[in-house]
């Protein structure tokens, strides 16, 4: 995807979202009586959404005029998806199984997704580092760690 298309796409998405949010500010939940002559609770959001809309349209126009080099095609999509998937799995795992069970798996998965070649070093790092952080922060400093809802 070329830069001009990316700018147009981002501008269009942001303008659309700003429009939807602007329409939401007319919802009945915001139609309250003002106290002491106060400004409406949606006055400032509407101003901001208006600015976002105008700037997004400018981005669309800029994208239409601009013909610089490709940006989005230069990325490694497969590795981004793998890394993103690994982070999501880790977060879900931490929620259900807790930090101590899931974080070593998560560090290992993200390392593999990023393409770290030495599995032995990665394995040792993924086992040792979460444990060290847990000992230092949970045992000595009393920082709270996710215990896991299933455990």
């Amino acid at each position, binding site marked *: 995807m070329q830069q001009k298309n990316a*700018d147009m796409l981002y501008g269009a998405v942001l303008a659309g979202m700003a429009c939807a949010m602007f329409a939401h500010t007319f919802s009945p939940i915001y139609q309250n009586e003002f106290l002491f002559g106060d400004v409406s609770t949606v006055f400032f959001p509407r101003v901001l959404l208006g600015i976002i809309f105008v700037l997004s349209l*400018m981005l669309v126009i800029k994208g239409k005029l601009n013909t610089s080099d490709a940006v989005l095609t230069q990325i490694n999509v497969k590795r981004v998806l793998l890394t993103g998937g690994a982070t999501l799995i880790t977060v879900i795992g931490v929620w259900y199984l807790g930090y101590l069970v899931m*974080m070593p798996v998560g560090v290992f998965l993200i*390392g593999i997704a*990023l393409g770290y070649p030495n599995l032995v070093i990665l394995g040792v790092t993924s086992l040792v580092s979460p444990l060290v*952080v847990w000992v230092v922060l949970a045992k000595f400093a009393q920082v709270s760690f996710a215990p896991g809802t299933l455990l």
Partner: protein
Amino acid sequence: MIEFIPSAFAATFSVSVLLALAVGTFAGIIIGALPGLGTVLGLVMALPFTYVMDPATAIALLLSIYVSSIYGGSISAILINVPGTPQSAASVFDGYPMAQRGDGALALGYATVGSFIGGIFSLIVLVLIAPQLAKFALQFGPIETFALIVFALTTIAWVSSGEMLKGLLSATIGLFLALIGPDAMTGQIRFNFDSLFLSAGLTVIPLLIGFFAVSEILYQAAVLKDVKLPAVTSGGFKLAPWSEWKPRIMVILRSCGIGSFIGVLPGTGATAAVFVSYADAKRRSPNPEDFGKGEPSGLLASEASNNAVSGGAMVPMMALGIPGDGGTVVLMGALTIHNVIPGVRLFSQQPDLVTLIFVLLFLSNILMLFIGGFGANIFSRMLRIPTTLLMPLVFMMSVVGAYAIRSNPVDLFVVVIFGVIGFLLRLNRFPPAPIIIGFVLGAPLEMSLRQGLILTDMNFLAFFASPIALILFCITGLIILNLFGLGNAISKRFRKKET
């Protein structure tokens, strides 16, 4: 403020604070030296450690990381030709050629001392300017505060990597995110879409971890080309004789001045300062042809100016509550956790704490000089750790930091969601720092606008009656005119007339 210096030193000389300073300096240099990490990620990773610390220890840890990570970037710039942080981008020009010809230890000596002088110079600027600015800002009412925040956000967006439109959009998106949750004046819940989680509003720590740390991991995944270990040239530490320093004193002082001045301007940052200083040093040099081939003056200009930014950037943060870059926004968020609210009232209400911050900055710079000098060999070896091994550890610390702040697992998903959003925005060169700065300034901006409108009976034009606000609005207007390209058009017309 002078009367608080003895008590500030007394608070500093406790085991926990000294240990935090030493560990922070050591970790900060390593974080700065490792390409792919940098000041912001270093501060984000240190956040969970500070939650249970007393304010003095927490501030000591964060300030030492902030100061030393800027210097750390020069180690990789000199030894492997890759700047560890964007602030050290100009250090590669002369640092690496010096290392290649076998003067790596000498280059590290120049970088360490140059960074130290820059740090101390900027601290003097901070001590002199920030209290006066805070005193002046005490006169500010809601109208002046509104004008100041609008000006600061526009400036931050203006200098956002040459993409002003995207910088402005980022800042406005950040402002909007701050509106989710209860309205500070009426208590009305806004933009929660019946979600219990959104009803409480978003908090800054998960947001900045998502935008800075997780988006960085995904960005590295997207752009990493290979995982080859960099070839490290000889490290060590060696000081040049006085005869080598003497002709370069003015270069160092000028670079310190440039760095401190640029640091005070919101959003400009160290990256701009180093290139301006480098260009200035080259222009004034009797032998500019040596620049880029291992000229110590080039390295000194870069290193003195990037560390001089550190104190300068803290001026608007401490005196006005306006963070100018990613580093100061994380610092401000971390200070807020410890009930230290940077802004105009910090100097009048907590002068003891302000003095403590100054003393800690001073000691951080001293420690950076010694640890940087004595640990040069260790830091050189650390450069062999590849980014692909570091990023999973960054994620681990992100999860720990996001969960520990409220013990709410939903914050983990906030981190991932905003990490993905931040990554998508960064792909199209939307800078992440204005989003977080906008988020931090969203509530005070809305509050000052609404209070100002109530004061003026809903007459926005009356905002221009305040001379301070008028000046700030005029400067903001000029910056916005530049956005529309009118500045270029006018200057072109003038040039045409002249010719």
